[in-house]
């Protein structure tokens, strides 16, 4: 490859690399943990931070980390303006609960941002055994406790259960705290394990089928609630192994399939509670050194849930489906500003309900302000059996007029399922003292850099585009026809030329391989051409012209035969001629003799003093013609 080409290629590759690098550099995704070592069942807070992303982002789903339970706890987003430059970031928070000791490396977490996948770096964690763990139930293990030991735990009479097929010593019940709810209202799904075995909970073999619901998972209790209950005349140890908060998205009748739960048991129901002290130890939970353990799949029966629509009576216009019990507060960062100077309003909505789906209060079109959304942050609290949280919205108001102008009351409506009524909260009305400014409104540089602050063009209606009011040019069709015909004609000419050129090229190649071929092929044409010129000399009485006639005939014959037989013209003797003719026609052939005779006539006539008769000239010409014809036939 030439050097300039190399340079060009290198420059292109470098340019593309830099361009791609810059583009990729706009979004940065990182993951971090608040600590790198913890005890089993401690909480490790994992944060995924996405910087520089545009638009809304969905919370990344964590892959299943072996040895950890994971829970999503909320998000927060920030947009900051420093020295006229803006930057945005979103943080997603998770809690990791280690389930076993060891050294772990959490692999990179894949995060989708604007259609591209980004992967975080790995995180190393060291989990150590908890010294006090033996007396706790962090691994969500339940164990049969014999009644004879006189357990101090509370004994409750339970309704008749649906037993696991084939074995009534162990079963799982999935229950909901209410069966008729409104859309987006929390319903608590609880999984309770009833067992008479030494049992270890292994997790879900099949995830619950809860399509149509927004799900929030509760972290496991540090102390699993464990009690002894009597069901159908038998004593069981009951333990709550999992809790999910479900939020239905639309009104409909649902059937929740609770999934399949995997447990491992020691085969024989235990008669004493002597191992209770140790059931959480992985060695002793195995049922003793020589005991055998067996895996069981437990499938609780499906649960019917009715989601009724919101009442239409009294529904506020700004109601957007938020359900729960909330309170709202609002504040502005300054009350006296110059025209075109941004004022930030902070709105905080806090309470029980699905915080993630909570919308910002509507802001009406305000002539006095340009309004832009800035930060949004949400935090989830999972206290007891309720999902609660706080969502903060920051809105930038830029006054475009001077004077005392007002930010009106903003309303936020939600449905309170306990009271079964709609409730509306209002922010206070803020009065701003805006001093005039000479400069015209201009979007602040910090805001104009972000596309999300620019207003979208709204199409208000659609129709067909208007007619053409000028006569279309006819020339274009004439042009096409003319161009096609012209180029077609040129192509035909060129094709013929190409044919000629190729034929000529082929001939040249043949001539290049055989030098005598060109002479052989052109001999006849050359001879005939010269013979035509002889006609004027044939009838002349002038002896000099007669001499020239025979001289020319001799030359034509010699030239022709020399060309045909590849001989040299110069110095060709009668002997050479005789030998060639004898080789070609044989010594007895009359033509050979005639040619020799013609040769003699020519030689003699050239030096004759007397006038040569015309019949002799014709005879010479005849012999010449016959010779050429005969040789042509012979050579073919």
């Amino acid at each position, binding site marked *: 490859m030439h050097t300039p080409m190399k340079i060009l290629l290198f420059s292109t590759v470098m340019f593309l690399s830099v361009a791609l690098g810059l583009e990729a550099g706009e979004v940065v995704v990182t993951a971090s943990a608040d600590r790198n070592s913890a005890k089993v069942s401690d909480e490790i807070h994992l944060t995924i931070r996405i910087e520089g992303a545009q638009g809304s982002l969905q919370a990344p789903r964590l892959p299943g980390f072996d040895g950890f339970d994971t829970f999503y706890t909320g998000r927060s987003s920030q947009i900051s303006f420093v020295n006229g430059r803006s930057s945005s970031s979103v943080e997603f928070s998770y809690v990791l609960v280690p389930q076993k000791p060891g050294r772990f490396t959490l692999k990179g977490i894949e995060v989708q941002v604007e259609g591209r996948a980004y992967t975080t770096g790995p995180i190393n964690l060291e989990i150590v055994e908890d010294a006090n763990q033996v007396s706790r139930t962090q691994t969500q293990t339940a164990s049969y406790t014999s009644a004879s030991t006189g357990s101090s735990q509370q004994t409750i009479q339970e309704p008749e259960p649906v037993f696991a097929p084939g074995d009534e010593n162990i079963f799982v019940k999935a229950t909901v705290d209410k069966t008729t709810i409104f859309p987006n209202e929390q319903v608590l799904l609880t999984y309770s394990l009833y067992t008479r075995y030494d049992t270890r909970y292994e997790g879900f073999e099949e995830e619950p089928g809860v399509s149509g619901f927004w799900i929030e998972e509760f972290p496991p209790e540090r102390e699993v609630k464990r009690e002894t209950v009597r069901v159908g005349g038998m004593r069981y140890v009951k333990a709550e192994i999992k809790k999910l908060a479900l939020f239905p998205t639309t009104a409909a009748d649902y059937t929740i399939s609770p999934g399949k739960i995997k447990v491992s048991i020691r085969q024989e129901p235990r008669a004493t509670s002597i191992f209770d002290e140790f059931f959480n130890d992985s060695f002793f939970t195995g049922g003793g050194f020589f005991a055998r353990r067996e895996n069981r799949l437990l499938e609780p029966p499906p649960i019917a849930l009715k989601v009724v629509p919101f009442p239409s009576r009294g529904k506020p216009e700004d109601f957007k489906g938020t359900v729960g019990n909330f309170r709202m507060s609002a504040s502005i960062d300054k009350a006296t500003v110059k025209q075109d100077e941004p004022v930030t309003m902070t709105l905080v909505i806090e309470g029980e309900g699905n915080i993630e789906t909570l919308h910002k209060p509507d802001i009406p079109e305000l002539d006095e302000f340009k309004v832009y959304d800035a930060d949004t942050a949400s935090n989830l609290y999972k206290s007891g059996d309720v999902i609660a949280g706080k969502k903060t919205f920051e809105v930038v108001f830029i006054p475009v007029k001077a004077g005392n102008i007002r930010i009106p009351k903003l309303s936020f409506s939600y449905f309170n399922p306990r009271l079964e009524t709609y409730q509306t909260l209002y922010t206070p009305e803020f009065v701003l003292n805006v001093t005039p400014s000479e400069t015209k409104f201009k979007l602040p540089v910090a805001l104009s850099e972000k596309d999300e602050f620019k207003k979208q063009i709204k199409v208000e209606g659609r129709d067909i585009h208007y007619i*053409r009011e000028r006569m279309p040019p006819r020339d274009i069709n004439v042009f*096409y026809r003319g161009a096609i015909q012209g180029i077609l004609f040129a192509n035909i000419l060129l094709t013929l030329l190409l044919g000629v*050129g190729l034929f000529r090229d082929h001939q040249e190649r043949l001539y290049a391989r055989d030098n005598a071929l060109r002479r052989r092929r052109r001999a006849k044409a050359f001879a005939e051409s010269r013979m035509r010129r002889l006609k004027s000399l044939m009838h002349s009485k002038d002896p000099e012209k007669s001499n020239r006639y025979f001289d020319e005939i001799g030359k034509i014959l010699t030239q022709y035969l020399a060309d045909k037989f590849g001989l040299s013209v110069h110095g060709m003797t009668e002997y050479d001629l005789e030998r060639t003719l004898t080789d070609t026609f044989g010594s007895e052939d009359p033509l050979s003799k005639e040619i020799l005779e013609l040769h003699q006539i020519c030689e003699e006539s050239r030096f004759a003093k007397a006038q040569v008769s015309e019949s002799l000239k014709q005879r010479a010409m005849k012999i010449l013609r016959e010779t050429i014809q005969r040789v042509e036939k012979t050579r073919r």
Partner: protein
Amino acid sequence: MKSCLNFKKVVLGGVVMMLVMQAGFVWAAEAMSSFDEANQSYRDGNYEEAARLYTRTLEENPDSGNLYYNLGNAYFRLNKLGLAILNYEKALHRSPRDADIRYNLNYARGLLEYKVEDKRNWYMKAVEAFLQYFRWEEVILGTLISYLLVVGSWVFVLFFANGLPWGWGRKALIVLFLISLIFLGAKNIERNMMRDAIVLEKNVSVHYGPSSADQVAFQMGEGLKVYVMDRREKWSRILLASGESGWVPSSQISEVVG
């Protein structure tokens, strides 16, 4: 006397030439006037008259994409979606890269009662979309030019630079010519074999055979685009982009080309 005769011939020829040219100008002026008249009728909201005048102008100037576009607009205003779409399609064949025609065609299609799900492979759709971006004449011209370049360069080398090796430039020209040949073939199939047509009737019953006695396969409505696969007397076999096919009376559809 002889020179006098020649002079008369020259004068006569001149007069004939002037008459022919004047007739051409008169024709052009008439065409202009009927086009302007049609536009004025459209502006006045007299869409029936506008459609009639556009149709008359088209008889004199049948290759104008703009005229078909305006006629499509007039039919659209008359709520004749089938005829509007047919004329937009005809306009698109003549001016395939005209954004207004594409917009109006898509808009009119959006108002149709029926929708046909295009079940063809993505590459078939891509090829069709690509082919539809070029006029038939443009494809022919492109092929001829690429042939001219190949043969011209060859002739040049043979006659003026004999012995010049086949460099990447001439190889690229041959590849270009082969591509243009394939393109020409594909365009020919698209234009002459997959003849597209538009349904003009409000409701059309598609039969399993070319007669009303044959069982009805499905119903379709005005404005849908179909491909005509076969023609019999008064009946046409059509194919939809969804893969459904059947027979319809030829009078209920109109081919875009032809």
